[in-house]
């Protein structure tokens, strides 16, 4: 058999690629979106009644900040969310530990949780007001509900997804139940637990908005309700932007947590 004909391969040598830092890329996307929004408003394609332009939103925000109402509303809302998270996350974790670690626990806890989790916030709020009166408690209770379920479900899944081989190997060294739970199972479930917390930070705010609009006494939802009643779209958008920024901030917090707590992982990090 004769030797095959050869073709030359194109070799480029080592390529030096310049990368923008990640946060800059992500921020750039947001800046571009705002830029497009402003452009579309200025060009007249987006009428003022439909949606205010970013410039108008900034002006309105300036006014709300200097009058102190934005700061006060944010403090109120953040306080409520904080309390709801402070009770809801541990509750979700505890229920998931009971349910995830013990099959008997799962039989006891899981079905009621699955039933409770699809109850709509809008429907529950009047009930909470009836039970807890007006004031902060029904709102915190709503946030608690919004937080508890994502944490519960994701923690449960995380616990059940821990590599059985790891647990088996760990067991052979007689660690005892406590050490097995806290040194093996919970760290193994941690990636999923953080997903649950990330989702909970989002639903916390969604739950609070409902509470602050139905029983309005302070907070960002209250500001938004007033703006709706007065048809002040620019102030409505200010509130929406605040929520959006809070969403971004929540996500950033979880990312920091992930970097600190999950640096040991060697999973797919995106192409």
């Amino acid at each position, binding site marked *: 058999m004769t030797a095959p004909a050869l073709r030359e391969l194109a070799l480029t040598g080592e390529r030096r690629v310049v990368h923008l830092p990640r946060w800059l890329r992500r921020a750039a996307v947001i800046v571009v979106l705002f830029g497009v929004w402003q452009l579309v408003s200025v060009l007249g394609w987006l009428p003022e009644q439909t949606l205010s332009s970013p410039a108008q939103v900034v002006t309105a925000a300036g006014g709300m900040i200097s009058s102190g109402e934005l700061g006060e509303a944010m403090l109120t809302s953040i306080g409520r969310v904080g309390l709801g998270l402070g009770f809801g996350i541990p509750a979700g974790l505890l229920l998931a530990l009971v349910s995830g670690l013990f099959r008997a626990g799962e039989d006891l806890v899981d079905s009621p949780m699955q039933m409770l989790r699809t109850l709509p916030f809008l429907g529950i709020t009047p009930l909470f007001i009836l039970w807890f009166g007006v004031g902060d408690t029904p709102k915190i209770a709503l946030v608690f509900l919004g937080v508890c379920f994502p944490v519960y479900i994701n923690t449960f899944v995380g616990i059940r997804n821990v590599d059985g*081989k790891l647990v088996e*190997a*760990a067991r*052979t*060294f007689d*660690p005892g139940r406590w050490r097995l739970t806290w*040194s093996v199972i919970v*760290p193994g479930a941690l990636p999923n637990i953080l997903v649950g917390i990330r989702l909970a930070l989002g639903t916390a705010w969604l739950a609070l908005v409902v509470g602050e609009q139905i029983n309005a006494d302070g907070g960002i939802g209250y500001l938004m309700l007033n703006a709706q009643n007065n048809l002040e779209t620019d102030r409505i958008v200010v509130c929406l932007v605040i929520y959006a920024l809070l969403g971004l901030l929540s996500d950033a917090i979880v990312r920091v947590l992930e970097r600190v707590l999950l640096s*040991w992982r060697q999973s797919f990090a995106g192409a």
Partner: protein
Amino acid sequence: MTELRDLEVRAPASAAVIVEDVHRAFGDREILRGADLRVADGEFVALLGASGSGKSTLLRIVGALDGGARGRVAVPARSSIAFQEPRLLPWRRVWRNVAFGLPAQDRRRRALAALAEVGLTGLADAWPKTLSGGEAQRVALARALVRDPQLLLLDEPLASLDALTRLKMQQLIAQLWARHGFSAILVTHDVDEALVLADRAVVLRDGRLTEELTVDLPRPRDPGGERFAALRARLLTWLGVPRP
């Protein structure tokens, strides 16, 4: 069968592992149908057999990982297992993996001593994800040995390593065994590995231990030797591998 009984006479009182008439079925499939095995104190036994013959099942029963068998199994109080995968906790540094389960007092010193024995002192503070396969398996060995077991169970621990690393690890295991004097049961597919490491090689077939071979070669074992080749040929025949 005669050979097994002979061994009982030779070492009746100093048995490290006693397996008598063990049956294990999974649903309809009977994996072990009356397995009998005795491991003398300080003896190194290799357990061979075709895939699916029940070697790992038997090892797991001896290692108290599988309680669903029938029969009699007696084991020493302190035993450790090393698996085919290193099974290290990825969220703990290497030395903390080795120290897992140890009482707090003296923990780091003992872990470092165990790591020194497997030649990994420099990696004590490394994360498992940074280790090569051979290094991770050595950490797993250190973890198994740090608590000074009387019995070491090895479930194909070298099967997923490359051939060169495997040879080095075999030498390491032989050294550790010589130094510590624990009893050992090694499940392996590799006939050479069995002959390099074991005092005795037993073959599991049809759910029973049907053949046994005493490896009375001097240590360290030389795979190139004539007697070695003869023993290898015998084992391969028992395992159903035809001569070329």
